Each structure stands twice: as structure tokens, then as C-alpha cells.
């Protein structure tokens, strides 16, 4: 299964992957590119990954979610250049009932952010760029040197 995609993400095919007559609830999450970050105007970004590990980690997360809840999970993450508003990540989770679908969907996005080796380089309205560091003060790392930008 390829969880990483260079092509734009579409929710329809992901829903079709997990839907079934005995699964009455489908919960979806789509994360899109925001036009601002830490007070700066964002005009686009580029996602890159440690592809072999990212694919493996996504596979583990889906398997773990399907082990914890009676659900089916479909997951994709975009790579490459994205514009504001484009989908960066898409998740569809189907279950017999909504409770498990919502819970598993929330868990999958949080685990993805915590475990999958993907990086984001933002382009700003003022012409600058920076690697996003969610753990750093201000949310970015400078392109050179070790201090937050």
C-alpha cells in the first residue's frame, strides 16, 4: 500500500476503500495547507519524507488502529509542493457505529504527527522559507545554524 502520494489527495476513493454494508459510520479528517503560521503569511510549502520508513510507519498505525477498534482505515499523505488550501493528509475510517470511527480517526492523525518521518518547508509571503519545527519556539527552525528563526 502506498500511503505517500505526489498527486493531489481525494477523499472519495479513500471512503470507497473502507465503506461496507455493515459499516454505518465513516469519519473523515482532511488536513489542508493554512495561509498563516506563527503570525507569518504562508503562500505554500513542500513536504518531504524518509519514504521507506514513512510507508512502514503508516502501515503500522493503520494496523494498530484496526487492532484497537473494529474499524477499517484508509490514510494518505501528500509529498512535494503544495499551495494554500490543498490537502496535506486525508483519513477515512469506517465502523459499524460512529463512536469507534471518530475515536480511531482522531488517534490516527495524532499518531501520524508523532511517528511518521515527514518534514515541511514553508514558503512565506515575504519571500523567505523555513523548515517547520513544531517543538521550537515560534514554530520554525532557521535554514542555517541552530536557533529558531
Amino acid at each position, binding site marked *: 500500500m502506498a500511503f505517500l502520494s505526489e498527486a493531489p489527495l481525494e477523499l472519495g476513493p479513500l471512503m470507497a476503500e473502507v465503506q461496507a454494508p455493515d459499516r454505518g459510520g465513516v469519519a473523515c479528517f482532511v*488536513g489542508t495547507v493554512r495561509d498563516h503560521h506563527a503570525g507569518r503569511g504562508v503562500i505554500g510549502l513542500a513536504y518531504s519524507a524518509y519514504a521507506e520508513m514513512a510507508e512502514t510507519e503508516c502501515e503500522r498505525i493503520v494496523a494498530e488502529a484496526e487492532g484497537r477498534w473494529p474499524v477499517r482505515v484508509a490514510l494518505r*499523505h501528500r509529498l512535494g509542493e503544495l499551495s494554500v488550501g490543498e490537502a*496535506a493528509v486525508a483519513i477515512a475510517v469506517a465502523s459499524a457505529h460512529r463512536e469507534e470511527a471518530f475515536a480511531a480517526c482522531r488517534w490516527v492523525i495524532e499518531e501520524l504527527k*508523532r*511517528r511518521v*518521518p515527514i*518534514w515541511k518547508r514553508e514558503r512565506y509571503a515575504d519571500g523567505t522559507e523555513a523548515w517547520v519545527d*513544531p517543538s521550537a519556539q515560534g514554530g520554525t527552525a532557521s535554514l542555517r545554524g*541552530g536557533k529558531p528563526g
Partner: protein
Amino acid sequence: MTTDSAALRIRVRFFARFAEVVGREAIDLRVAAPATVADVLAEMRRACPPTDVVPAKPLCARNLSQVSLEEPVADGDELALLPPLAGG
């Protein structure tokens, strides 16, 4: 002094900001056995400066799984140094 035959061959990979600042995507190292992830990092810092962009305790993956710095490494391992993750 360790001979080459007793050394572990480890490929260290850099990604994103680390690759940009270090100026390369990978380096092949030899470290004396037995060795841990921390030992490989120490050898990496000697072999390819400037590596001050890599923090003292970076997120590391050995053969596609996150590991601690105390994890032992084996001949032929791939050790990836992961900048702060920013997916999703």
C-alpha cells in the same frame, strides 16, 4: 585499535534540514564493535562536520524503527537522523 574486519559498517542518513545543513544525504561509517546508536553519532560528528545542526540527542531510526541512543547497532544497519517531525 579495531581492525576493519571487527568494525561494523553503518550507513547514516540525513533528512530535510539536517541534509541541507550537513550538505549530504548519507555517509557510510565504520565503528568498532560493540557499538550503540550514540557511538555511531559520535563517529558521524568526527567524520562529517559541520554537524552542530544535529542536536545532542536527535530522534533516530534504526532500520526503519525509532530507537533510543542506547540501542545496539549491527553490521549493515541503516541509522537515520530525523529532524523534528512535521507531517499532517
